[in-house]
């Protein structure tokens, strides 16, 4: 829509002001790195973070979420009624959220997700340097974003360029920040910074991310699944840290009175043994190899084909960092590509 500028000293007041009206969730430091958390003080926010262990999807799809509570014969749906700002989302995660939006809106819309999404304003953040050797956003074309955000921040030395994506973003900026229209010089600096940024990011996949569905389509019978499957523990860490994973389990919990309780959903993992097992005991993906293949098919093929324009993998590298036995998407996809080259 338009390009605005916030001077660096005006950023903290902007965050503080938003906190007066919204729950503001942003990157904060913890003992092992960074995580997305509700800010209690504007000074906690670390916009220069590299990555987080758990992606910000937890703000839209909480790890555990009550669907309804029950009390004898009455059922009461539960909805999160907060208005929130999700601050400092990197573009890889932003692309993932656009995919989640599509997945939950498609068919019968998931009212719980839709409600939370509708009350969330996203302020994303451009990465100017690669986070580490595991990310491959350039190969997945998620290195930047032109939509999906309400506001998008790009740090340019002593000020932030602010790309206004929606009217909600425009209102957030107008109500809470001191900003001005970008000058010709500021736009020139943005242009220069973005060009310099591009060269800093390595291309790590041997094929373009857009060609993954085709590669996966011819890789069902690859011996790689058995090989990698032998190493996999089936722990599910890859799913838990993935910004595009959204599978969940539904469970009931009864209160101490034995009568009231709630039904909730909780993140689940297709790598766990019981994920595809049915009541009679039949398990449709019994082996680690089958389950790994399913995950990589979802990431590389199924999602991209089900939701045109969206991606099942955004190249954030979190699953590679989390894997205890170094099973990485770059490793798997490059091996499959080489096997067919």
């Amino acid at each position, binding site marked *: 829509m338009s390009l605005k500028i916030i001077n660096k000293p005006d950023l903290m007041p902007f965050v503080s002001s938003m906190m007066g009206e919204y729950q503001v969730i942003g990157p904060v430091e913890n003992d092992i790195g960074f995580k997305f958390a509700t800010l209690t003080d504007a000074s906690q926010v670390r916009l220069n973070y590299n990555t987080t262990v758990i992606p910000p999807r937890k703000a839209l799809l909480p790890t555990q979420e009550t669907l309804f509570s029950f009390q004898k014969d009455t*059922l009461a749906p539960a909805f999160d009624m907060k208005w929130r700002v999700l601050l400092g989302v990197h573009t890889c995660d932003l692309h993932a959220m656009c995919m989640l939006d599509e997945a939950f809106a498609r068919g019968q819309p998931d*009212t719980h997700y839709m409600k939370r999404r509708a009350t969330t304003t996203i302020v994303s953040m451009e990465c100017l340097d690669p986070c580490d050797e595991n990310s491959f956003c350039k190969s997945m074309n998620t290195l930047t974003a032109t939509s999906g955000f309400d506001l998008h921040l790009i740090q340019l030395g002593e000020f932030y360029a602010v790309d206004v994506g929606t009217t909600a973003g425009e209102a957030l900026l107008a109500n809470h920040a001191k900003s001005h229209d970008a000058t010709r010089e500021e736009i020139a600096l943005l242009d220069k910074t973005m060009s310099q940024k591009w060269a800093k990011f390595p291309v790590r996949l041997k094929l373009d991310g857009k060609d993954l569905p085709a590669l996966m389509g011819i890789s069902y019978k690859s011996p790689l699944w058995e090989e990698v499957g032998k190493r996999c523990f089936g722990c599910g860490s890859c799913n838990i840290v993935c910004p595009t994973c959204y599978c969940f*389990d*539904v469970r009931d919990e*009864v209160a101490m009175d034995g009568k009231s309780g709630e*039904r909730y959903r909780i993140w689940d993992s297709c790598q766990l043994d019981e994920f*595809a097992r049915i009541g009679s005991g*039949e398990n449709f993906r019994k082996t680690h190899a089958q389950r790994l293949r399913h995950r990589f098919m979802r990431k590389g093929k*199924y999602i991209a084909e089900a939701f045109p324009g969206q991606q099942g993998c955004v190249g954030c590298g979190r699953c590679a960092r989390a894997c205890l036995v170094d099973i990485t998407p770059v490793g798997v996809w490059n091996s499959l590509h080489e096997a067919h080259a």
Partner: protein
Amino acid sequence: MSIPAIESIYLPTLAWIAKVETMTATEKFFTVELPRGQSLGHKPGQFVQISLNGIGEAPISISSSPSRSNGKFEMCVRKVGDVTGALHNLSEGAQIGVRGPYGRGFPVEQFEGRDILVAAGGLSLAPVRSVINQIFDNRKKYGRFIILYGAKNPGELLFAEERDDWKKRNDVEYLETVDKGTPEWAGNVGVITTLFPKISVNPRNTVAITEGPPIMYRFVLMELLGKGIPEDQIWVSLERRMKCGVGKCGHCQLDHFYCCQNGPSFSYAEIKGVMEAL
């Protein structure tokens, strides 16, 4: 800033058990009544999520046909898990939750004018019964009607009264078998594929609907294909772990299909070559 009122898609409708009948040692047959006499509005081959507060939900096939709904629906439940176990302990008048109907049923309207061959194994006669009765109630719209049914032993054969009726009717050719007989059993002994040599079909004009345990499909499909029935005229129903019923939770995914949305009914042409399907 105001938030518009919203409904949860996961909230079940409260319904009542109108009737419970014990069918076998592990199966009970439930008639469920919906509030205000509303109809479930299902198609043959669809399923519902049955909900018990504090225990959870289980996907259950609808056993009654839309042609006989009348504000109620029927389901046959095998006791295999927490929800089905608890259902077995409920009696008439008990309240349960219902979500659905979900999934794609069998496109019976498309089958009009065709000969229909149904092959059901074990408990699968219960869901297939929704198609069978729909066809009986619209009998003139279809050609020949053949039903093949197999169970492990005579004690596991379901719907005795209805099967007796089929044996008497002259508008259906009904054959049944058991894998293992008993001294009193005078009928066919052998797996369901042993019934196929006893029937002849006009393959071009036949639609086959088969449902059974996963192991049965491979063999029954070979028989059906061997009779020359085209791949897109053979229909199966695939059992997977339908959890949310609305294509989100991922448990029932089969390749790129979500069984709860794209299925559970599939034509063989749709799933042929799909690695995890059969």
